[in-house]
């Protein structure tokens, strides 16, 4: 597969390390979260057959974490974002 890195352009997915669902960026608030929130965060997944927002680390490249929107049925990639930017947006939301 080829991931279109926002900075570096098209790069082979073999240069990346896959982590999983991008919801892993939405770590529960340690002050307020319930045990159930932590269980859901760590263990439950939507696992969709279709578009999936997921985390890839460019280990063989610039060491950026990326949020890739990829269709799990066709493998088509429709969006690639710098995870740090996404995380900052999440932060500002919270």
């Amino acid at each position, binding site marked *: 597969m080829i991931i279109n890195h926002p900075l570096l352009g098209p790069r082979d*997915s073999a240069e990346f390390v896959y982590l999983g669902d991008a919801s892993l960026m939405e770590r529960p608030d340690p002050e307020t979260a319930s045990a159930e929130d932590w269980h859901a965060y*760590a*263990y439950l*997944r*939507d*696992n969709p057959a279709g578009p999936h927002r*997921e985390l890839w680390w460019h280990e063989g490249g610039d060491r950026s974490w990326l949020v890739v929107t990829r269709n799990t*049925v*066709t493998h088509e990639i429709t969006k690639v974002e710098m995870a740090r930017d996404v995380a900052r947006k999440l932060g500002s939301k919270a």
Partner: protein
Amino acid sequence: MRYSGFKVIKEALTGHKGWTPAWRDPEPQSHYDIVIIGGGGHGLATAHYLASVYGKHKVAVIEKGWIGGGNVGRNTTIIRSNYLLDGNEPFYEMSLKLWEGLEQDLNYNAMISQRGIMNLIHSDAQRDAFVRRGNAMMLNGADAEYLDLAAIRREYPFLNFDDARFPIKGGLAQRRGGTVRHDAVAWGYARAADSRGVDIIQNCEVTGFRIENGKCLGVETSKGFIGAGKVGCAVAGNSGRLMSKAGMRLPIESHVLQAFVSEGLKPVLPGVITFGAGHFYVSQSDKGGLVFGGDLDGYNSYAQRGNLPVVEDVCEGGMAIMPMIGRARLLRMWGGIMDMSMDGSPIIDRTDIDGLYFNGGWCYGGFKATPASGYAFAHLLANDTPHETATAYRFDRFRTGHMIDEKGQGNQPNLH
């Protein structure tokens, strides 16, 4: 129809006119005691044991395509019970025992071939871990055997002993492990279940569950509504897709695992061999093909196909451990979709929805588990209590912290 030596000879001499379909092709009835979703190995085995062991005959297996078209038809056919943890080992050992009696039970030759499985060891730490595992197996009543380097050299002279980047230091063998003609497992269970009145309904896709005030009343399908006292889901690989129709999120990700077969070769491999310093395991089929595989592609996928990097990774492992296969040719590669669970172990449990039961999360250990999975799921569906060998396979183990993590990789499915 029973298969017998006499029958085979008679048909051979009379032009095979007397053979009848291995299973019927019925239309669905309006209601069953138990409906199994998924005509794969696990679903068909569940139906067989429901009918033959638990006396349930008003049972249907509904399959969206043709039976045996999922992972039971696209795996590397290995059976073994070489597990470490108490939550797993008794279950897989029961499975191995069921395999050993399967042909007589089903009156169908699935070519169970117990030529052994050998896990190669390449470091001291690995040896310590395998010794612990071998001991766990034996303490659970399974067979295990530790082999030193000399013994490995004797039994597998063709391995790379002299120019290895990660030299072989020994191995853990399970002599009762081996391989099975995978398609025949689906067909054999289907034929046996059918002969006991189970309806096997092919090309019937589940479009939804009918759930009223917390109880599952049946399934909506492409062939209309089918009522059921209980609904059991056994669609590993597609569990996420199916259970979302019941509004459930699972501790599971779907991943693609590739497998490979070479051209037919004169026999070279005694049994199953797994490389301990790379991603490669291999056996040889009765037709002569080297059947081998390795690691997941590593990303969520429902596409039954993979990509080159893993193909190369697997072949690199193969050449590293047995460089005599360099001129053998890879004939076909394919991909199967795995229910990768959060701790690498399966789930056989009731759901929060009354009357809806779940069997999945098999990762890439599903094929060897087929008989025990069917048996334990049948037990759960019949008695509403978990089978004694499957008590640990609960949904809530993640909530309570009772994970069954053989590989110690934690909540990252693609590492299991």
